[in-house]
């Protein structure tokens, strides 16, 4: 790859040689563009979009620019560590900019250059991809971004989140870090990614860090997760979410008419969603039931989104 942007880094920090170097380069790039660099949300989520820094912050009138890594769990994608391209746990690098700057495509391309992709050698393409999250009641239009035929990012202009129309519109960039790193490092097997950029005895691979976890969690997701417990937890989370929203409602007639407990309620929505994903992986949900579970999570997301607009960060005056 190109050395233009990373030649001043020590070899083990270069994004094209080190998985963590890639993460650091993206963080540095977006920090430089004015984003707050957050840490991953401390809950099990299926994608970076679930982080309240995206779902909630995409709603309401206030500007918001943030970037973060989000470990994402998709129980169904587990392959017991046998498939070099599919993991039940992987990393997304998420950027959200509200309102989207008019040159967001150019910024995105700059970020690719910053991680060592030379645009005079590689074929970058924006290929139609409409994004939709039925559980979040969200959709947007955008593209899959291709580098030499490999999908390396998702690029979305949010139109609706939690059933609420987004205005102003946020631009969301999601980099699939493993794929991108495999491309940059020229590796065909995800487990062979160089994680720390070192060589010889010092080298730590992605497999060293995650292969055992993939095997164990695949067993858990497909065979051992207690389905009765998961169903119970789903219902508990659903109830808790509604209870918290109710309890956070302002007193009628009080001076401050803002909602006081959206984020804890939204945590419960995230929990319900992950319980559902586990139940789905366990194969105990029939097709019509599946639809109804999705709908139930969406109702929670919608209630949280509506409540968020009644908070300060959601734009409600005190």
């Amino acid at each position, binding site marked *: 790859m190109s050395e233009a942007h990373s030649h001043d880094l020590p070899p083990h920090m270069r994004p094209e040689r080190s998985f963590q170097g890639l993460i650091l380069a993206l963080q540095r790039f977006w920090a430089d563009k004015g984003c707050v660099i957050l840490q991953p949300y401390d809950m099990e989520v299926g994608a970076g979009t679930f982080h309240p820094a995206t779902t909630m912050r995409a709603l309401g009138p206030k500007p918001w620019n943030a970037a973060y890594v989000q470990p994402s769990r998709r129980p169904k994608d587990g392959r017991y560590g046998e498939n070099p*391209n599919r993991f039940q746990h992987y990393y997304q690098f998420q950027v959200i900019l509200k309102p989207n700057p008019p040159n967001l495509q150019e910024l995105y391309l700059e970020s690719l250059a910053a991680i060592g992709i030379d*645009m005079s050698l590689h*074929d970058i393409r924006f290929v*139609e991809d409409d994004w939709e999250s039925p559980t979040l009641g969200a959709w947007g*239009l955008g593209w899959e971004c291709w580098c*030499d*035929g490999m999908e390396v990012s998702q690029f979305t202009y949010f139109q609706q989140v939690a059933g609420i129309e987004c205005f102003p*519109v946020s631009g969301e960039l999601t980099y699939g870090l493993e794929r991108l790193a495999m491309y940059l490092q*020229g590796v065909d097997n995800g487990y062979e990614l160089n994680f720390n950029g070192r060589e010889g005895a010092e080298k730590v691979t992605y497999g060293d860090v995650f292969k055992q976890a993939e095997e164990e969690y695949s067993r858990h997701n497909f065979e051992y997760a207690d389905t009765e417990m998961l169903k119970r937890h789903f219902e508990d989370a659903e109830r808790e979410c509604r209870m918290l929203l109710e309890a956070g409602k302002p007193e009628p007639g009080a001076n401050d008419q803002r909602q006081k407990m959206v984020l804890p309620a939204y945590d419960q929505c995230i929990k319900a969603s992950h319980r559902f994903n586990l139940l789905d992986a366990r194969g105990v949900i029939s097709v*019509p039931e599946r639809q109804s579970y999705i709908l139930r999570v969406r109702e929670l997301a919608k209630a949280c989104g509506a409540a968020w607009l009644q908070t300060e960060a959601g734009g409600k005056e005190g």
Partner: protein
Amino acid sequence: MPELLLELFSEEIPARMQRKAAEDLQRLVTGALVDAGLHYEGAKAFATPRRLALTVTGVPARSAATREERKGPKVGAPDAAIQGFLRSAGLASIEEAHVHADPKKGDFYVAVIEKAGRETTEILAEAIPAIIRSFPWPKSMHWGTGRLQWVRPLQSILCTFGPETEDPEIVRFEVDGIRSGNVTRGHRFMAPAPFEVRRFDDYVEKLEKAKVVLDADRRRDIILHDARERAFALGLELVEDAGLLDEVAGLVEWPVVLTGTFEEEFLAIPPEVIRATIRANQKCFVLRQPGSTALANRFILVSNIEARDGGVAIAAGNGRVIRARLSDAKFFYDTDRRATLESRLPKFDAIVFHEKLGTQRERIDRIVALASEIAPLVGADVAKAREAAELAKLDLVTEMVGEFPELQGLMGRYYATAEGKDPSVAAAIEDHYKPQGPSDRVPTDPVAIAVALADKLDTLAGFWAIDEKPTGSKDPYALRRAALGVIRIVLESGLRLRLRALISSGGRVLGRNDGASGDIAADLVSFFHERLKVQLRDSGARHDLVDAVLAAGMAGAAQDDLVDIVRRVEALGAFLATEDGANLLAGYRRAANILKAEEKGGERFDGAIDPALFVAPEENALAAALERALAGAESAVEREDYAVAMTALAALRAPVDAFFDKVLVNADDPAVRANRLRMLAAFRQATQAVADFSKVGG
């Protein structure tokens, strides 16, 4: 004459929407010109991934002035009438109207509406923003803090207007903060700098220098030409794919065709899988050995840039992705073959086909029952048809079909073959879905026919039973296609089937054989009639003849033998094309018109003809001819020899003509008159043997 150039420059427009958007832009802008009284000479629209462009030539610089006189109410008419007139004519007060003197009817008001000619630039500056704001994208979006909707963010607008000989002027307007200008940009990576443009020829030339081929057809031609050439250079043949070609032409502004390689070991995967993988995920073309269906381990990709290294890195990168995809496909293929198709059956208990029609397992059981019933009727081995029906849907839960739904059936065939199943059983798994569309292959093997018919009839009977029929443009379960599939299979193999009985069987296995099933079957048969008419019309037959044949038939006959219906239509068409046929039709119409007038009062003339009442020899002759013709036609119809039936009827032509020539139906003696009407009725009846001539048009 001046010309217009318009370019709407945006972020990447989905490939599938580009062609229609260019057409819409042309239609809307030229429509607005014509509405404003501006007639133009020519127009052409273009699309690339990042721009819609339009050129309109021969547009007058100004619209002509118009003067219109509008007649109003009488002088002294009620105020409401006056006010209405003022509103419609756009006048502020009645003093602005003229008074026309009319000594006979009374004076009345006339409004003279004069419109001055307008500068075309002014008209455009008004019309184009309105078109942009309401552009018919299939899906559009907001961005940033704006309220405009476009398919993806709209970045800039170029709009110039002027004669060829001078520098055109910018048509100035603003849409949601975007001001029109005369600047555009070239290729995103190879020529991103902005540049000024005067008019269309200059635009195309400068774009070309800036590495943008404006015309999608030209991009397609370049890709096709270069791809064939690359294939030829490798001693291979391009597997052409028009849909993919169109799509790829919509993904690049500057097509650069490259070749890549994957490992030969992947050629062990079925070629259709390789093609689907490479096509769906990578939008690349596959290559084959000349004159063979065997693929080569090469592919063609279309890049959007001329890379510094001649495309080495791009081809290598695409090759790596394809390798990863193919190793996924190989993994699926190997995994799928580790278990038999049959072992997957229990999974279908948990898959709902349709809420009201039960699980997929129940559906499979129904198709098995129906296929077993159809098998002997179409000359298929019952055991094989049964086995094929049992296996037909089982590949739906394989990994491969999960990944590539378009390979359903085909994978079942591969897996069944690998399990050593009978070849016609394996082939039926693939072919039972056919024909998918008008150009798709129709199954010909009896086993495949039995399963294909069972599958389609079960679907139709099921959705009819729960009253989910197609309406207007809505046909979510593709029931029209299913019915057309049945029709094509039946006709192309000349199958003599009673559809109604099979539909009732379908209803029975569905457990819906209640009181309503008779109505459902009858309704579904008429749906088949409708589809048959469409099918015959598309193949050039007159649909009035289909109506004539369907309306004839014996009373109560189901008219559900499609082959029989088509043969009648053909015989009728051939007969009417002869002179005898045309004359007999004329005679029929004369008789039918007389009878229609006479039957108005409710009287019928279907009694026996009484030879004792004959007066003219032509009456004797016609009566004898009728008897012969009827007997001849009926026995021919029984033998299904419709041509002979028609010939038998043709013998009536001379005696019918003579009868009308020499005999006055309206005789003075009421008994003679009634007898003659009975003779006409008998003639009308005789023609019914094959078709109802009253439905024949023209």
